[in-house]
């Protein structure tokens, strides 16, 4: 694959699926600087992954795999570099947050997702974006029955939290 083809694929994937990357960014990074850093890391890894994509899975599954792997690796690294990262908070950011109507329910959902551990957070994103059990199992590298058990627990947790919480117009 030459660089031109790689660039075309990259543009096409980002045009269609950038929302997926934004969701991972918002679920794993919480300050504007961290979100920007994680976004840059993910798109760099997406670019690097293009020559390895053989079409054996859907593009969304592939992108989730790359984005979640990158986010988990970024979190492990970011924790060690927290002091350095905080010192860079004044630098210019690539990601811009548009002015949008407030969505307390969505904010609440992201807040709940952020409280989960890394593994459950990944599974929740895949679940909410409608990936099949097989796709989730492939992305995480675990069995479908393991996915099923975990998802039942996560769903029950979210429903319980939404019933207990009334401050977000739930």
């Amino acid at each position, binding site marked *: 694959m030459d660089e031109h083809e790689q660039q075309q694929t990259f543009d096409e994937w980002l045009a269609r699926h950038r929302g997926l990357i934004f969701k991972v960014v918002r679920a794993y990074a919480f300050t504007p600087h961290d979100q920007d850093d994680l976004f840059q890391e993910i798109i760099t890894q997406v670019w690097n992954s293009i020559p390895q994509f053989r079409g054996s899975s859907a593009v969304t599954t592939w992108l989730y795999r790359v984005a979640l*792997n990158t986010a988990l690796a970024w979190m492990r690294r970011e924790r060690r570099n927290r002091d350095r990262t905080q010192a860079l908070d004044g630098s210019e950011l690539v990601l811009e*947050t548009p002015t949008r109507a407030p969505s307390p329910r969505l904010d609440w959902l992201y807040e709940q997702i952020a409280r989960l551990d890394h593994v459950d957070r990944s599974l929740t994103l895949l679940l909410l974006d409608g990936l099949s059990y097989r796709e989730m199992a492939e992305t995480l590298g675990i069995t479908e029955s393991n996915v099923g058990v975990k998802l039942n627990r996560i769903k029950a947790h979210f429903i319980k939290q939404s019933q207990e919480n009334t401050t977000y117009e739930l």
Partner: protein
Amino acid sequence: MNFEELKGVWDSQDKEPLYVVPQTALHELVRQRRDDEHRKTAVRHAIETIVNAVAGLVTLVLAGCLAWGDPAWLATFSWLKASVSPWDAAALFLAGVAWLFCAAYMWSARRRQIQREENLAQSIRGDLERALAHVAFRIRIARDIVWWGLIPAWFAAGLFVLVLFRLQQAPSWAYWVIALLMVGTFVTIQWWQHYAIRKFYEPRRRELESLRAKLTNPEA
């Protein structure tokens, strides 16, 4: 809310993007970031390897000059105060080989690491396994570097200095100063490697193992 309602809340964000990204900046961004990563790796790689390789080559050339150089020509060097023996050349030759061995070891260790990092993991579990293998590799390197990286270089530097001091007829205290410096460096690096294992690598390995357990255990 039931789960379908939660899904509806989640899907609502697809109508309006969470962020805006200037499309034209993306290619430049990816290019810069990749170049930066490659440059950093290349510089680290180059420094570790080239310093040892250059030291090795210079020492071998010096050994060659002492072994086969015209005695009249060697006599023109004012710093050569003692007569050159075959043992001086042999010691320098040994030091040069040891330095080149260190360069080759550093180069191959770095290549193996780069190759591992270039292969994309096929799943999150695969990525975790790779990260664990990487930490194990760092721990092994931190332990082995004393034997395969530090001691040969230390031995080479020792021989080099010893031969130069003998040829210059340096006073005995100079030998003691150098011996103390070398022992001090050796002990400091040894201590640092053990500290790095205890402080950074072992906690990281435990964290990764706990994440893997969490991933593979359905009830976790």
